[in-house]
């Protein structure tokens, strides 16, 4: 049986930083500064199988990037154990670097003034690939990522979409077993996003590359990842197949009511049902299934309105994630100190 690609147990990261006390003078602040501790990641555990495509999501400041940085050996954990491809990232950083690739959406790793081929060659040498393999891999990636049109252009002249394709290609030069992507589609237009997602799916399929991704983009999660881990306030609050996200998190149904003629009155609704939109041609209501069942709510709505058509549907993934981000923090005890 293949060992897990990533195994994390009881992982925590605390940051300590000095804070200025306004009541103290500057000498005291300099020599005996007060410090504050923040728990960015709080005793999380999970495992990822080789070839899996995992989305690691959460609101800003939830601990996503800190976790990725610990998994890649950039940050040292305060507590807990990490095994990535059976290596400890903190101790075997360089050895692990040969087996993983990283893309940070907001930082470029390419050489800005030189043509893209120079960056790809540069990474090839950095990963100690023989010259012939470098040439072959550049050819492969150029074909796969359709880099032909701009491979000879200086990187700083590329569009954002082209640059992100190039960033991912560079991260794949050494055929990593896992690729970590931190918001790879940030700032891209819909076409560029789709193109990048398709390429990542191809890489996952053809080279069995495990994908571990953080993103605020629902499309990334929906179209790329089969599994989603939700983190907030440093704790994992859910780890489930992506298709079950909506079912697990949303206790609400949406009902569209289309009138026979037109709606003239908008009466008060029973408890658990509220208007989302109300106009003469269409009413949309939200039903809270924790308060009222779907069947009962339909009966009550039909008593109140004369309708020609009814459409019942769940929230889309974007609404689900908004729901998670907005509601979950209030349901859990904050862990920040």
């Amino acid at each position, binding site marked *: 049986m293949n060992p897990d690609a990533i195994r994390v147990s009881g992982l925590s990261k605390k940051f300590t930083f000095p804070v200025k006390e306004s009541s103290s003078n500057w000498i005291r602040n300099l020599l005996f500064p007060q410090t504050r501790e923040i728990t960015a990641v709080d005793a999380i555990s999970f495992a990822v199988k080789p070839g899996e495509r995992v989305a690691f999501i959460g609101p800003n400041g939830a601990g996503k990037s800190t976790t990725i940085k610990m998994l890649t050996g950039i940050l040292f954990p305060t507590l807990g154990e990490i095994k990535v491809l059976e290596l400890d990232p903190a101790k075997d*950083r360089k050895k692990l670097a040969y087996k993983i690739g990283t893309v940070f959406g907001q930082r470029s790793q390419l050489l800005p003034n030189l043509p893209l081929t120079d960056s790809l060659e540069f990474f090839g*040498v950095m990963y100690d690939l023989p010259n012939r393999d470098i040439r072959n891999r550049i050819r492969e990636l150029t074909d796969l990522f359709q880099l032909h049109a701009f491979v000879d252009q200086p990187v700083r002249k590329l569009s954002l979409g082209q640059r992100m394709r190039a960033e991912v290609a560079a991260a794949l030069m050494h055929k990593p077993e896992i690729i970590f992507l931190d918001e790879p589609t940030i700032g891209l237009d819909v076409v560029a996003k789709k193109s990048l997602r398709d390429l990542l799916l191809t890489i996952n399929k053809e080279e069995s590359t495990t994908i571990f991704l953080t993103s605020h983009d629902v499309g990334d999660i929906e179209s790329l990842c089969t599994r989603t881990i939700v983190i907030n306030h440093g704790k994992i609050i859910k780890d489930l197949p992506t298709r079950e996200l909506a079912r697990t998190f949303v206790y609400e149904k949406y009902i569209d009511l289309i009138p026979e003629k037109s709606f003239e009155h908008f009466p008060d609704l029973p408890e658990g049902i509220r208007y989302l939109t109300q106009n003469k041609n269409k009413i949309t209501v939200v039903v809270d299934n924790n308060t009222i069942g779907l069947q009962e709510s339909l009966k009550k709505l039909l008593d109140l309105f004369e309708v020609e058509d009814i459409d019942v549907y769940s929230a889309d993934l974007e609404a689900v994630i908004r729901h998670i981000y907005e509601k979950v923090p209030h349901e859990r005890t904050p862990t920040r100190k």
Partner: protein
Amino acid sequence: MKELRLANKIVTTQIKDRIHYPGRLVADTLANIGRCGILLLLYWYVFNLREGTIQNTTFLLVAWSMFFYFAFSVLRLRDIGKTIMEDVRSGTVEILLNKPISYILYRAWWQLGGGLYSFLVIGIIGTILLTTLIGIPDTMMNLTFALSLAAVFILGIVLSLILYSIVGMLAFWIEEIRPIFWMVDKSVMILGGSYLPIALFPDIMYKLAIWSPFGASQFVTHTMYPSWTREWYSFVGIQLFWIAILGMFTYFLFQKAKQKLSVNGG
């Protein structure tokens, strides 16, 4: 072998990058010829006032000493401190920390590669100009000079990179390292003989220039003086001493710095 291949790739990539911008090279050349040229004119005037000799030193020796300082400074090794500081402040350090490289060594080769092309061009132009205008001192016309110059030049590069890397790494602890950088940089400039040639230093400053790592990183400016052939091996020894001590310090400092790292978004 892998390290050498990577070093070669970094240096050649940086040279290629610099060649793409000939304007920068022209500006560098003019700035250095201007700075060095003005100082040499002033010293030429002062030496003439004193009938060509001050403290048993001639203008010819002083001019070459100052030229060596300026040529060495064209390598811009000091900028490794600022680069590391920027890496830490901007978070770019995370891009390099997840590569199979030694971060400090990578930055050192990167810095060296960035300055090498300008150094070669400006060094050659300056040597031709100086040789044509004022000639070459006899002390520079022997094999010991050539070999020892190569040794202190290479060791000077290593020591400079270590010194400024230490300053840069302080950014892991201190948000604003510019004042520290300024102090170290001015110490190197003064004790290296950029303002006043080392032959004219008072005794205490001369001793500081020899025994401090700041002065030791600029021993190339000592190589044309007559005493050099008798003393060069002790100068090399001093450089090796500081490289060993500060090199170990750099290693331990970096191990601590990595654990201190805290970048945007974690």
